[in-house]
């Protein structure tokens, strides 16, 4: 694997209760299938990682679906990151015990930032993934504001302010950045977000939101700060084969992929 050029292709699976769903800009939740049917049909081990997102747990102030996490953990032998509803350390313990390899926090960054420090102290920095859901709020200048509660609430932090806020509270390995505007649209990744991300950062980025066709991966050729890209629409809705995506990236960039 090339150093700094490695790229993971991850599957993002949005969950609401016992169902796999699809959102557009984190809203308009549409059911795709039951978790059981999804797990029967998907070839999850072909992906480099799986990211399970409970889309409404924080919004409805309820705990994550531990049974669903456990079902996914039983079905995969690649890393599983779980996001949504982790609002105290006891919940984080249960999520890890259910089979998560890493946990992501979004709403807690703004409402209970100390929790992130507790998780990284207990499980190690690499087990924590701060999850930023960014909305473009000033189109001429393309400023990005962090949102929480599933993209419903606008925080007071821009991307840079949020990174400073995180540095005061916790150590972490990678950071997940989701473009609320691009998510679920299939119109391609919002690479302008990365213009606002400090190139000297110690933390590489997992980028999510917007991949709708295989050629959309082309923009990642020159973005070594991106360690992973999460796709939902492409694989869950359009049913594109993971190997086709990897073949395209291999042919069109120097990014190094895990071969199956």
């Amino acid at each position: 694997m090339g150093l700094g050029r490695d790229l993971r292709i991850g599957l993002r699976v949005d969950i609401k209760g016992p169902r796999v769903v699809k959102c557009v800009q984190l809203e308009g939740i549409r059911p795709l299938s039951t978790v059981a049917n999804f797990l029967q049909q998907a070839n999850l081990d072909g992906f480099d990682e799986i990211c399970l997102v409970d889309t409404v747990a924080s919004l409805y102030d309820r705990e994550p679906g531990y049974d669903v996490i456990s079902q996914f953990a039983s079905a995969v032998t690649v890393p599983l990151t779980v996001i949504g509803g982790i609002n105290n350390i006891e919940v984080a313990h249960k999520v890890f015990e259910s089979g998560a390899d890493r946990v992501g926090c979004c709403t807690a960054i703004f409402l209970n930032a100390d929790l992130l420090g507790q998780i990284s102290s207990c499980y190690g920095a690499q087990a924590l993934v701060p999850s930023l859901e960014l909305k473009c709020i000033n189109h001429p200048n393309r400023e990005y504001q962090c949102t929480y509660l599933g993209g419903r609430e606008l925080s007071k932090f821009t991307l840079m302010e949020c990174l400073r806020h995180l540095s005061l509270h916790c150590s972490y390995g990678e950071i997940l950045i989701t473009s609320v505007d691009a998510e679920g649209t299939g119109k391609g990744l919002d690479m302008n977000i990365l213009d606002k991300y400090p190139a000297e950062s110690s933390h590489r980025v997992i980028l999510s939101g917007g991949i709708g066709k295989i050629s959309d991966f082309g923009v990642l050729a020159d973005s070594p700060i991106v360690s992973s890209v999460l796709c939902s629409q492409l694989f869950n809705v359009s049913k594109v084969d993971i190997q086709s995506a990897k073949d395209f990236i291999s042919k069109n960039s120097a990014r190094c992929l895990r071969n199956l």
Partner: protein
Amino acid sequence: MPTKPLAQIVDCYKGNLGKLERALVRVGFTVRVAGLDFGGADIVILPGMGSLGSLSEAEYAAVGSFLVNNTSIPVLGICAGMQLMYAGSKENNGYVNSVSPVNRVLDYLEYTNTGQKSNIGWRGIKKLTGGSCEHWEAKSFWDKEFINYLDDTTVFFSHSFCDYEILSAECVMTSETEQGSIVAAIIVENNFGVQFHPELSGFIGLEFFDLIRTKLCA
């Protein structure tokens, strides 16, 4: 010889033990999750998900003492479990064991003014050819078959602390990171430590576990 060897996962710090347990069961192990009492176990596994910083000094010392004195049971340390085979780590608040299989202290992968770096992702690993690592072959469960199987494979790493001493006597496999070559696997007597996560490495990891099971059954 056991048909379903008993693997004991040591429940020594908070972390996801379920993925490891499921992978071992999938290839035919019986699994027990317990503390430092290893009675009846065919292999002991120090799991990888967790932080050494959450261990007490007494727990750290107890593991070190067991690893040094153990002459009968093969031990596999995964990621943080491999790091338990060292005298200490900067993750563990500066505590240093007086007895441990590897007499070194692990350092940050890299610490900059923007924070500590982690090595997360799929990386290639290679066996260390030559050097002084040949001595284990005759007297340990962990023979070259394991190294040869893992050589030139791509496996999943997720860690923030590491050992850069790739020319040390214990190092048997290496991996490249942005910060340089790191120790990917060590063998000291009955103790085999791997910095990567077999349980998260797809079929490579499953086959590695199956290789262990097969040898335990032989």
